[in-house]
């Protein structure tokens, strides 16, 4: 179990951070350790999700075994990871050295309070249980994937042969859960309910930390207060069962929770970054547009409608940018770069 927990930490924190470091450095949005860490974590997880989605949808449609799909993903991920690490070392060697040598900035009182609330939420995600019926599909699909080394061949509710798999197979988030379970050796149900939620909480909070950077720059006091309000709003967000906060704290093992509390806020953060950079430099780093495309893939992984929601919010952002600056180039590019993820909902409509 201890080894499983260590591997879980590597897969859920270290791997995304290393994967996203090159993106965080290239976007140049912040130079402090905490900013780079949060950005690397968020962008790295988006890249992991974005690679996982096409590999697994392709594998499911091709009737590959789960283990074969996993091997494919790991090979592809290995290549991407190696490329990103090489880019990071070659291009940002000096910067990495400077960041590693720099001291961690002393947090403001309210930032410490926010961290305490985050810590409480993470502990509560293990010691408190929320019985949600939808887990009977998502978690059982992941468990069945490992057990029978197949994907969406059996009805998760009962184990009978599946009659219509198409409703769910274009958003194979349960297979992500199955992958974590397979690689760590932790049972799927324990992974889903006790070991995945805290990383989802960290991801959601990291996205809002990026917001705090965009909104307040280096003003530690305001960032601390902002993050404190954010964490309180999350903890007390159970005003109905439909809120992103409810999904995050109660049902974080489901793809729609990742979509509501991590992916969609990350899209808004990316739009924010694009408009902010355009305002300052009148041009936008193409990496931001590529990330906009990848976050759409990540959204499609979480829910069949995830891609559509990602595109909707990007189009909304494009419209607002167009009306604010009266320039078509970047709003148009944002819209174009967000579109590829619509391929998955399109496949869903073709098959159903």
């Amino acid at each position, binding site marked *: 179990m201890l080894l499983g927990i260590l591997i879980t930490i590597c897969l859920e924190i270290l791997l995304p951070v290393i994967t996203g470091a090159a993106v965080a450095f290239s976007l140049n949005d912040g130079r402090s350790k905490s900013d780079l860490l949060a950005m690397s974590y968020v962008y790295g997880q988006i890249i992991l999700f974005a690679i996982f989605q096409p590999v697994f949808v392709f594998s499911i449609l091709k009737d590959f075994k789960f283990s074969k799909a996993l091997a494919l993903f790991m090979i592809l991920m290995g290549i991407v990871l190696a490329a990103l690490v090489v880019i990071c070392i070659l291009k940002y060697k000096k910067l990495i050295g400077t960041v590693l040598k720099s001291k961690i900035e002393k947090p403001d009182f309210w930032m410490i309070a926010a961290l305490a609330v985050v810590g409480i939420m993470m502990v509560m995600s293990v010691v408190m249980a929320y019985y949600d019926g939808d887990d009977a599909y998502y978690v059982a699909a992941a468990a069945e994937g490992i057990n029978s080394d197949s994907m969406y061949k059996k009805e998760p509710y009962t184990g009978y042969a599946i009659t219509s798999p198409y409703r769910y197979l274009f958003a194979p988030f349960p297979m992500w859960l199955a992958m974590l379970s397979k690689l760590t050796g932790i049972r799927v149900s324990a992974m889903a309910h006790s070991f995945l939620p805290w990383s989802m909480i960290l991801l959601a909070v990291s996205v809002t930390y990026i917001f705090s950077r965009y909104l307040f720059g280096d003003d530690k006091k305001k960032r601390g207060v902002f993050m404190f309000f954010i964490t309180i709003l999350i903890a007390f967000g159970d005003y109905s069962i439909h809120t992103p906060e409810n999904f995050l704290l109660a049902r974080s093992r489901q793809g729609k929770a990742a979509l509501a509390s991590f992916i969609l806020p990350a899209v808004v953060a990316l739009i924010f970054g694009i408009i902010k950079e355009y305002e300052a430099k009148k041009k936008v780093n193409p990496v931001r547009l590529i990330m906009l495309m990848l976050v759409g893939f990540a959204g499609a992984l979480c829910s069949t409608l995830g891609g559509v929601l990602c595109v909707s919010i990007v189009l909304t952002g494009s419209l607002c940018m167009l009306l*604010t600056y009266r320039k078509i180039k970047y709003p148009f590019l944002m819209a174009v770069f967000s579109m590829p993820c619509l391929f998955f909902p399109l496949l869903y409509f073709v098959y159903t």
Partner: protein
Amino acid sequence: MFGTIFSVIKSYMGTGIITVVFLLCLAYLAFFEKDRVKRCVFVYMPLVVIVIFLCPATYVFYGKMSEAVTYYRLIWLIPVTPVIAYACTLMVSNAKGAWRNLVVAGLAVCILFSGRLMYRDVNMVRAENLDHMPDVVVDICDALHVDGREVRVVMPEELTQFVRQYDPCICLAYGREYLMGIYAQPDDLRDSMIAENRDPHEVGLQAVWRGVHYIVVRPGEEFDEPPLYYEEYLVIDGFTIYKNTLLDTDV
């Protein structure tokens, strides 16, 4: 149409206090935020999403693409939490020293009372294990598990949602779809299990025909005599398990 959309909003916003707080924060930012970028993301974008959400054509289009019951997911496109947090932070930014801390604490208390603590939700319970399911499910599954093969089981309906999360080798004769109602097909075995005057003969015949290895019943709901072709096998945490005498469970 508007009625349906407003019922979606109503079910989303709970008491409605947070929604009022959000709208006030949005109005505050619309009046006082001068930065073009921040206005674009935290004022214009939410407003456009609200307009799109309220548009009946969007509801019709969404209903054609997906299930209308999930229409509330469009509200996820509005960054409600960051907007409230940002507006609140701006409100306290003019206060200095101890006053600032006092105002932050005061606003936090207001947020606290306008929302509801997740851990006070009726569905949130203390976890009995790392798998976050009742211990009785774990005990029953461990007792029925056979290495290297699947077994089929009839479980009390309130436990069906947990079984295959914990052990996919245990298949169910009928599952969680019957708790959801809308997705369920007629099922003779289930009908005979939930019948008011449960007939062990009928249950046994239906279960054997469906290849069920075990029937699990709740405490106090034991059969007067075991179902046809079944024998009493185990009692775990008060739940009685009947085993099929015709089908073996060897590998």
